[in-house]
C-alpha cells in the first residue's frame, strides 16, 4: 500500500512547527501504524534527514506512551485502541494521512510529535492514591468487596494515562482521566478515609495545570483506548459536590 503523509514537525518547544509532506510506498497491510513510521524514519535516515521524533514503548496498547492525532482523531480511526494498536489495513490504499501530536495546552510539545504530559502525573501526586505504608496492611480477605463494586473499580482503574481524553476534548479537559482515578479509589472500602480530601486536591491540581472543564461533548469517551465511561465524570462531579458540601458543613 502507498500513503501520502502530512506530518507535524517542530524542532523544540520554542520554535514554530509546520506540516511536512512525505510519501511512503509498498507498505504491507499487516504493518502497524507505528511500524509504518519506523519505515519512514529509515528512509529519512538513508537520505540523511533527521528522523521524526514520536513516542512509543510497549506497542501493545497498555503503557499509554504513544500519543498521535491522526486525521484529527486522537489515536486514529480504530477505536477503542491506542495508536500502537492501529494497523495500516484500516486505511485506504493511496490515502492522505495527517499526523499531529495531541494538541492540549497543558501538554507542551517537546519535539515533532512528542509531548510533555507531566501534568497528568501532578494530578495523581496531588492525592490519587491510598496512603497504605508497606507492611501495615491487614489480611487481604478481611474486607470482602462486592464483585460489582470491584469490577466497576477495575473499569475505572483500566485508564492507561495517555491523555487522549484531553486531546479530543474541545475544552482540553482531563476530567475523564481524573474521574477514573477518583472513582476507582472511591469505589473501594480502602479508599474511604481519604475520599473527600482526594477529590478536592485532585480537582485543584487539574485546574492548576490549566485543563478545561467538561461540557458533556463525550469526545473523550469516544477516543479512550481503555473505554473509560463518561459515567465516571458524573461520579467525579458527585464526589466533588459531596466533599465540598461536607467540608462546608464541617466548617
Amino acid at each position, binding site marked *: 500500500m502507498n500513503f501520502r503523509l502530512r506530518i507535524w514537525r517542530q524542532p523544540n518547544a520554542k520554535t514554530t512547527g509546520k506540516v511536512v509532506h512525505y510519501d511512503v510506498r509498498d507498505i504491507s497491510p499487516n504493518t502497524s501504524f507505528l511500524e509504518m513510521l519506523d519505515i519512514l524514519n529509515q528512509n529519512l535516515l538513508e537520505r540523511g534527514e533527521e528522523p521524526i521524533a514520536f513516542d512509543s514503548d510497549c506497542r501493545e496498547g497498555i503503557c499509554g506512551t504513544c500519543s498521535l492525532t491522526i486525521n484529527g482523531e486522537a489515536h486514529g480511526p480504530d477505536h477503542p485502541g491506542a495508536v500502537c494498536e492501529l494497523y495500516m489495513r484500516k486505511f485506504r490504499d493511496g490515502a492522505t494521512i495527517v499526523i499531529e501530536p495531541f494538541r492540549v495546552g497543558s501538554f507542551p510539545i517537546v519535539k515533532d510529535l512528542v509531548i510533555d504530559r507531566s501534568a497528568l502525573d501532578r494530578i495523581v501526586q496531588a492525592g490519587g492514591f491510598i496512603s*497504605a505504608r*508497606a507492611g501495615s496492611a491487614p489480611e487481604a480477605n478481611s474486607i470482602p468487596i462486592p464483585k460489582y463494586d470491584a469490577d466497576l473499580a477495575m473499569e475505572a482503574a483500566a485508564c492507561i494515562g495517555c491523555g487522549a481524553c484531553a486531546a479530543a476534548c474541545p475544552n482540553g479537559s482531563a476530567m475523564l482521566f481524573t474521574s477514573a482515578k477518583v472513582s*476507582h479509589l472511591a469505589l473501594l472500602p480502602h479508599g474511604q478515609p481519604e475520599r473527600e480530601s482526594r477529590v478536592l486536591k485532585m480537582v485543584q491540581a487539574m485546574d492548576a495545570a490549566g485543563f478545561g472543564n467538561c461540557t458533556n461533548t463525550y469526545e473523550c469517551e469516544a477516543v479512550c483506548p481503555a473505554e473509560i465511561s463518561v459515567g465516571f465524570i458524573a461520579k467525579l462531579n458527585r464526589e466533588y459536590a459531596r466533599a465540598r458540601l461536607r467540608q462546608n458543613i464541617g466548617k
Partner: protein
Amino acid sequence: MIGTLDAKIPHGLLNQKWCSHRDHLRLVSPNNRRKFEIIVVGSGLAGASAAATLGELGYRVRCICFQDSPRRAHSVAAQGGINAAKNYQNDGDSIYRLFYDTIKGGDFRSREANVYRLAEVSNQIIDQCVEQGVPFAREYGGLLANRSFGGAQVSRTFYARGQTGQQLLLGCYQALCRQIAAGTLRMFPHTEMLDLVIVDGQAKGLITRSLRSGKIERHASDAVVLATGGYGNVYYLSTNARGSNVTATYRAYKRGALFANPCFTQIHPTCIPVSGEHQSKLTLMSESLRNDGRVWVPKRNVDRDKPPGEISEADRDYYLERKYPSYGNLSPRDISSRAAKEVCDEGLGVGPGGRGVYLDFADAIKRLGEETIRERYGNLFEVYEKITGENAYKVPMRIYPAVHYTMGGLWVDYNLMSNVPGLFVIGEANFSDHGANRLGASALMQGLADGYFILPYTLPNYLAGQMGKRPSADSPEFQQAEREVRTRIKKLLEVDGKRSLDAIHRELGHLLWEKCGMSRHAKGLQEALTKIPELREEFWRNVRVLGKDEDYNQSLERAGRVADFLEFAELMCIDALARNESCGAHFRQEYQTPEGEALRDDENHAAVFAWEFKGDGEPPKLHCEPLHFETVHLTQRSYK
C-alpha cells in the same frame, strides 16, 4: 576485589532463615534516615515499590526512569497474574509448595533460601496490594478469586482481568506519587543511567543523561539500586517494550559487578507469530489462556493449509496433552515452547511461514459458553483481533514462542547486594530467584517482594556503616566517569556511516535467536562468537546516527543501547557455551534424555555462573557459586 562468591545465606532451618536474618540486620534510626541519599534506577514493580517504601521509611530517594512517566515502566504490560501461597482455594497450597514449584520450575538452578523467602513474603504482597486499592478479581461473595497457571497443580494466581501488571504497577506508582508529594522522593523521568560511579570500591552514584535535553548529570548517593528489568531486546524481536535495554546492568558489569547466568532467557510459548520483516515487536498472549485453550497442530503435513475447522479431531495432534498428560496444556513455559518448536521443525506448523500452532477455545466455549470466555479473556481476544484481523471465538488463535523474560542478571547475595558494595539489584535485573526457568505469575511476585519487603530490610544493613561517607559529585571518580560518557556519545555521533541501527540490531537479534535461542549447540555458539565481534566492528565503523547530542535525539539514545547489546550478546554466548548441560530454558542439543527432555548435570553444573569483566577484548572470568540443596531432592523435572 572478588574472592569466593559468598551468597551470605543465613544458617538454620530453611523456614527460619529469613526471620532470624531479619532479627539481626543492622538498622538506621528514624532521625538518621534523612541523611542518606539513595538512587533507584527504574520505576517498574521492583523499582517503584522499593523507591516508595524507602521514601516511607524516611530516606531521601531519587528515582530515575527512561519513560516520560514512571507509570509506563514495562511491568505495566504483564497480563496474567501474581502468585501467592494464600491457599484461599483450600486445594492444598502452602508456602512450601509454592517454594517447591518455583525451584522445580527453575530446574534446580536457584538458591533454596532465596526462593523460600520469596514464597514466604508472597502473602504479604497480596495484603499490601489490596490495601492500596488494586482491584483484583473477586468472587460473588466479595472474596478474592484465583486461577491456575503453568507449572502448578493448585490455583494460587491473583489477577486483575488481563491487566494484572498494570494494576500492580499503578499501585506502586501511586505509592511513589505519595512520596513525591511528601517530599521524600524526587522523580527524574525521561532520564537514562549511562554509568555507575565507584568510589573506594563502593557504588556511590551515577552519570545520567536527560533524554529530553541531552544534559549529562552527576548524582552522588550513599547507595545505588538497579531495578532496570531484563535484556530480552538483545534479540531485537521480543515481547519487551521498545525501550527496554541492558545498558544499566551492563555498565555496572563493566564497572566490576558480576553478571550471572546471562544465557538463561525465557521464551514464552504463547505469542502472536511474526508476520513480516517490518515487525518491531512481538505481542504476548497471556499464559492464562492455556487454562481453557487447547494447543494442537495437524497430524499430517498435508493438512497444514486447510482451514482449522475442516481438520477432524482424529487428524489433530494435541501434542502437549499427549506428551505431558498430567500437566497437559499447563506445562511450564520452557517445555511448551520447545514442544512448539519441535512440531514446527517437523513441518506441522500452521500459518504464514509454518511457524505457528493452534490455541483452540472451541471446547471451552462449548463447555462454558462464549460469555464466560469473554469475561475471562475478552481483552486478549480483542488484542489478537487487532493484530491479526481474526476472531478467536470463531477460529483458533495461532501462537508461537517469543523471547519474553530473562532469568539471568547481575549477581546478588541473599541481601540483594551485588559483589560491589552499595550496589543493590532487584526484580528482573538480578538473577536470583527463577533459576533456569521462571514460572508464570512469578515475575510480579519477585519484583514486589524485592521492593516492598526485602530491600527495605537489607539496604539499611549496608547503610548503617556508611554514615557521612557519601562523596561529592565533584570528586575525580565522577569527573572521570562523566568524561568517558561524553567521549562515547561523541564517538557514536562521529561514526556517520551508512547502515541503520535497526538493520544492525535486527541482524544481531536474528543471529542470537538462531544460535542462542530456544535450543543451542556448541558449534552454533562458536559461530555466533565469531560473528558478533564482526557485527560490532561494523557498528562502530558504519552505523548512521543523526542529530545532535544536546537535544531530544531518539537515534542517539537507541544507538547507545544497541552498542551495549552488541557486547552483551557475546557474554550470553560465552555463558551458554560454558554450561555443558541442559537445564530449564537453556537447552543444549548435546545434552538431552532419550525422550528429548533437558538433561541436567548436577554433578558439575549445580552452580551459578557469574562473569567478571576483564577489559574490552579480553575474555571474562568465570566465578562459580555452588548451589547447595539441603531441603529439596534433585529430580529430573517431570510433568508427564
